[in-house]
């Protein structure tokens, strides 16, 4: 289900769902979009489905998988900044549905008192 921004069928209530998905995925700390669980948030379009993006009456919901070690606030800020211009005046709700798997022990000194999970 790759997003193709030029398709006209992806516009739901004035929001181009494919553009929202592409903008959210382009955020540096977003690993990808996810429906979260079977039957989770997704937009159903003719013949396909965009997972992790839903257009509600008053909000665009973007459900993402976060990069490891990023604060939820930073992530939400990035996604909101990217998606807000496409949201047709709706608010942007960010759902951190999953997290990238942590780096293996030793890769970043995460074990034995390592405190560098997050940057400064």
């Amino acid at each position, binding site marked *: 289900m790759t997003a193709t921004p030029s398709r006209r069928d992806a516009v739901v209530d004035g929001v181009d769902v494919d553009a929202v998905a592409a903008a959210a995925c382009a955020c540096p700390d977003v690993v990808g979009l996810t429906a*979260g669980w079977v039957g989770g948030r997704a937009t159903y379009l003719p013949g396909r489905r965009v997972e992790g993006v839903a257009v509600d009456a008053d*909000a665009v919901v973007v459900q993402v998988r*976060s990069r490891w*070690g*990023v*604060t*939820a*606030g*930073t992530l*939400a*800020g990035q996604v*909101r*900044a990217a998606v*807000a211009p496409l949201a047709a005046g709706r*608010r*942007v*709700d*960010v*759902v*951190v*549905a*999953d*997290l990238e*798997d*942590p780096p*293996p*022990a*030793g*890769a970043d000194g*995460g*074990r*034995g*008192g*390592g*405190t560098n*999970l*997050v940057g400064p």
Partner: protein
Amino acid sequence: MTAVTEAPAGGSAPAHGGLGRLHIHDRVVEKIAAQAAREVAEAGSARPRVLGRSLPGAGRFGIRRADQGAAATASAAIEGSVTRIELSISVRWPASIPEVTARVRDRVRTRVSDLTGLRVQEVGITVTDLVTDRTPASRVH
């Protein structure tokens, strides 16, 4: 099930009137908590359980034993902007259990609140095993 925080933590308030909510799933908190517990040197993964009971001779049946290098088992419940976390860990012999659990609790609390902005109300810890291995298991990463 999910957290609702109107203003995201971390000082990066959105420039769009602060509208929009931030939800965080339990699963995210669980992963952070498990990894945070692992960062404490004397704490390791919980003893493997079969049908909810730990097996005394699990190692002999080829079931993985409690492992100092592996992450602990965590479950989290989020209500509003508050979370409660339950952890199962093993402790390296002969470390002091109160000391290790206090360090784990502290680390988990800090990590989860730093990364998610949620308030950690409670960290419940169950110590399911003592690990006597003197050398940490070698890892193939």
